[in-house]
């Protein structure tokens, strides 16, 4: 019973940790916009946490610059399982307009497994909500898989 | 009259304290401590004084009726106190030597590594 309750709570209280790997701040702003009264992601229990240790969902924005690559990998390792990795915007998936630069390591999939990709440059807050919602569901599934 | 003794002892104590407070030289501070000691010793020995009393030594042959001797206890106290005072002074002076070796000065205002 407790197991079920925990699994159910997983999708209802996902805490987000946001990693900016050299983003232009467009996506970052939209992510914050998601918490504003108009979109209010807190309805679903989303909360921005300040440290990866508290996080369930890691949101990556930015094209993963060479400088930030190690930090990203280290930070992701510090997130306790179950965790879901979400890429926000086009940059982490492809590098977007920075593609091919000597200082850009995108796509992020080279280092981590990405669970949900939210495309857009920047994504509309609704898309962010939809993406995070999907991530929360994946989180629950991962938890259920863990305890099986 | 013992009043002079008392006044003198208080003056000695005050002078000693004055020395300790105002003089920067460590040797002078130690001397000040000595002066305080002597003032107090004078005071103690004065408290036991009885005018016209003899030395407080039991000697049955010389003990005549009506004769009395000074209080022996303060004298014993004074002796003890002098011994202790001498110890303290010796200790203080030895510390001054050590201090001079470490700090190369006997100026109290320079010897202040421990502060705040």
């Amino acid at each position, binding site marked *: 019973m407790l197991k079920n309750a925990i699994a159910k709570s997983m999708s209802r209280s996902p805490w987000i940790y946001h990693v900016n790997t050299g983003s232009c701040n467009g996506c970052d702003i939209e992510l914050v916009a998601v918490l504003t*009264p*108009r*979109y*209010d992601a807190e*309805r679903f229990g989303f909360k921005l946490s300040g440290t990866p240790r508290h996080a369930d969902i890691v949101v990556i924005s930015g094209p993963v610059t060479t400088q930030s690559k190690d930090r990203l990998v280290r930070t992701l390792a510090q997130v306790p399982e179950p965790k879901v990795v979400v*890429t926000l915007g*086009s940059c982490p*998936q*492809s*590098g*977007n*307009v920075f*593609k*091919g630069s000597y200082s850009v390591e995108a796509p992020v*999939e080279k280092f981590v497994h*990405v*669970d*949900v*990709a*939210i*495309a*857009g*440059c920047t*994504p*509309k807050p*609704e*898309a962010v*909500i*939809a*993406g995070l*919602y*999907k991530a929360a569901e*994946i989180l629950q599934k991962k938890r259920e898989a863990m305890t099986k | 009259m013992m009043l002079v003794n008392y006044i003198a002892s208080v003056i000695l104590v005050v002078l000693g304290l004055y020395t300790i407070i105002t003089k920067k030289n460590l040797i002078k501070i130690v001397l000040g401590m000595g002066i305080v000691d002597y003032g107090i010793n004078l005071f103690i020995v004065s408290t036991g004084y009885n005018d016209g009393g003899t030395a407080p030594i039991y000697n049955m042959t010389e003990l005549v009726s009506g004769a009395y001797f000074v209080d022996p206890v303060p004298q014993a106290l004074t002796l003890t106190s002098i011994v202790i005072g001498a110890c303290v002074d010796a200790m203080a002076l030895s510390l001054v030597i050590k201090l001079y070796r470490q700090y190369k000065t006997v100026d109290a205002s320079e010897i202040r590594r421990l502060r705040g």
Partner: protein
Amino acid sequence: MMFPFIREALSNLFSKPSTEAFPAAPVQAKPRYRGRISYDPEKCINCGMCKKVCSPGAITTEIEEVEGGQKITYHFDLTSCTFCGTCEDFCDEKAIKLTDDYLMVAEDKKDLIVSGSKIKPVVKGKLACNTDSCIFCGLCAKNCPEGAITVDRATKSWTVDHEKCIQCGKCISKCPKKVLAFEEPAPQGVIFGGEGCVYCGICAKKCPEEAITVDRATKSWSIDRDKCIQCGKCVSSCPKKVLSMGPIE
């Protein structure tokens, strides 16, 4: 007042929240929102202009030789797209459109790639027979599905009805002496009519491959045939209609 928001906070408490009930009630994007790309391969003339103007290089093409021509596939990688809309602007055929679908969320990256393909038929020359080596066995005629070939062994004549021929190539494969073949087609290309040209240079501007050079001063028009991809943009954009597509020398 030390706390200017106290009144607002209290009045908000008793008023309706301004939150949109998003996942429950779908939200229409605002007009002119640039979202998911839709691509109509039928309209596409494979000019490649979109690919050229795309700054993040989100558009890729694949050309595959298939039966009946080249299969040309366009991939629009939404995870790489900046949604600037330049490709839409540059597409003369209106084959690309940025829709208002903003929900570009996927677990699998493939879901975020919009693709479309069409088969561009290959132009073949006419069927011809080298009658010098032909033995007029008639196998070709027998195998022709349309009955376009007529072989007369007696008169040693071999004829083909080009109207009926569908260029299926069965005859070629059946020929024992391998004397049948499609003729080399005349190379297609832009033909410059000359008469009436005002040397405006629109064709040069429209050319995605910059194959056309127009010099107004010397009234010269030249084309680099190697560069030309025969997209036909110059033809459609010519104001004086002096350009045409056709076989060239």
